[in-house]
């Protein structure tokens, strides 16, 4: 699995919170991961497994413990600040409020997103040419946002904001797209639309993607590779062939074998809607 053609390489990446206290948490425990170009990885795991910590370290929100390395497109970005990571990485957050600025207009939000990876200068941020570009970027959403460029984003619904956040994350074609449970707060119908949009954009732009989800069925249906995390470690890593005929039940079994524990996360089981899923056991 390793090699020099990896788009993203994580080497010995660990993260400890509240070190030397009773609350100490090993959020990430010596993660080694190679993400290949055009991979679409779905990441599952119970609460506290380290999924969001993994994305936060990749996005540069906080650095890994000393000795860890994050390499993207061959350059070591381990010690760069978050806004420098962002030149390579687009991210859609669980909360639509984090991905967009409410008091600013749709076109102003998109202008901010357009400048990812470029130095921001003293040119006027929204001009005719850019408006046209934004319009073209919004049409595929089918939400009519392309005709409301000067509307403040705060007046949009959660689903519309998340769709806009998705366009903003991908507008300047970053090397890597991080989707952090980005449909978790949306109603089922909107969630489906945003998810399909995500897949369409990822396919069209051939974008390398890591998607965190709580839903095992989605994790199996989308992408070409599946990672399961537990207690800060990657315990299952399945490529396209390995997960092809997998069911949610298989995943639960795989989890139990790899972690040496009984599967006991109600939230995942309940969100699968799988009649074969077993009731949550406690050890």
């Amino acid at each position, binding site marked *: 699995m390793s090699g020099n053609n990896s788009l993203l390489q994580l080497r010995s990446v660990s993260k400890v919170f509240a070190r030397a206290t009773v609350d100490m948490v090993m959020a990430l425990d010596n993660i080694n991961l190679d993400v290949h170009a055009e991979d679409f990885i779905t990441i599952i795991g119970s609460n506290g497994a380290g999924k969001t910590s993994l994305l936060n370290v990749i*996005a540069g929100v906080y650095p890994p413990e000393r000795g860890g390395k994050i390499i993207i497109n061959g350059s070591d970005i381990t010690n760069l*600040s*978050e*806004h*420098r990571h*962002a*030149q390579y990485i*687009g*991210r859609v*957050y669980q909360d639509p*409020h*984090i*991905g*967009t*600025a*409410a*008091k*600013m207009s749709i076109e*102003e939000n998109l*202008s*901010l*997103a357009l*400048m*990812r*990876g*470029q130095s*921001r*200068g*003293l*040119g*006027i*941020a*929204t001009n005719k040419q850019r408006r046209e570009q934004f319009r073209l970027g919004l049409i595929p959403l089918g939400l009519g946002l392309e005709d409301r460029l000067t509307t403040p984003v705060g007046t949009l619904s*959660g689903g519309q904001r998340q769709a806009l956040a998705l366009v*903003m994350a991908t507008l300047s074609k970053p090397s890597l797209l991080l989707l952090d449970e980005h449909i978790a707060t949306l109603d089922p119908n909107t969630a489906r639309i945003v998810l399909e949009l995500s897949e369409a954009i990822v396919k069209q732009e051939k974008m390398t993607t890591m998607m965190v989800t709580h839903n095992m069925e989605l994790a199996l249906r989308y992408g070409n590779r599946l990672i399961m995390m537990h207690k800060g470690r990657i315990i299952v890593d399945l490529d396209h062939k390995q997960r092809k005929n997998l069911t949610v039940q298989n995943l639960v079994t795989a989890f139990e074998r790899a972690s040496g524990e009984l599967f006991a996360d109600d939230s995942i089981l309940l969100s699968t809607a799988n009649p074969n899923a077993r009731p949550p056991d406690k050890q």
Partner: protein
Amino acid sequence: MDVLVNLLSAAFYEGLAYGLVAIGVYLTFRVLAFPDLTVDGSYPLGGAVAAILIVNGVNPWLATVAALGAGLCAGLATSLLNTKLRITALLAGILMMAALYPINLMVMGGQANIGLLREITVFDQVSQFLGIDDKVTLSIIFMVILAIIILLILNWFLRTEIGLALRATGENEQMVRGLGGNTDMTTILGVSISNGLVALAGALLAQRGGGADVGMGIGMIVMGLASVIIGEAIFRPRGVTAILLAVVGGTFIYRLFIGVALRFHLVSASNLKLITAVLVIIALAIPYIQKKLRHEWVPPAARM
């Protein structure tokens, strides 16, 4: 009639001069969501730097620009405390405000005030240049030109790519960083520009008012806030240009209000800041009380 004209014209040029303070306060409090208290120190800093340079024979224009530069540095210091050492905005401003008091005294060579009545100021030079002797007319013309220039620059700047990132920083820092924007840089830029404008106002009002005083900045923050709030409440502006104009308009109304109250002895000069503080408290409390009465208020944590 004369009284009215005098009141209006005084409110007009004072409104424009203090309008620079209000715009500075607006940039930090509203645009950056950075409650910056440096203002109470950077305003007299501007006055002190301009005054000491002018009495030492420096060209008044140069002295005024130097005052602006000193204000920029004060804002820079505050924003570095916040962005590089992670001291909260409020505390960073308080620390700088406290530190600036002795610094201002030092700048003025240990004196608590410096008179400029017998010195040649920028107002005198413009008066000569335009051939206008009337002090009030001159002040109005001078301040109108200056205000137009500064508003045009800010109106442009806030629409640039950097300006957009600056505005977004105050609203959603996490998003700006996620889109590759350096929020430390935008914060430093915004707080510096804000204090530069405040110090410029200090330099101009020291020259217009006959001198700089180490205590001239006390309550400047509250006054600036009052102007911003009045401007927002009365004009309900939308968009960058409208907001900038509303803030200056708010300052004018505030100065007029103060002028009338003082002229007709409704308040004494010594109570002015108390009255202003009460005004700000009322203006800040009204929206909450209205919502509470209509059962519309929702705690911030529960807002979606």
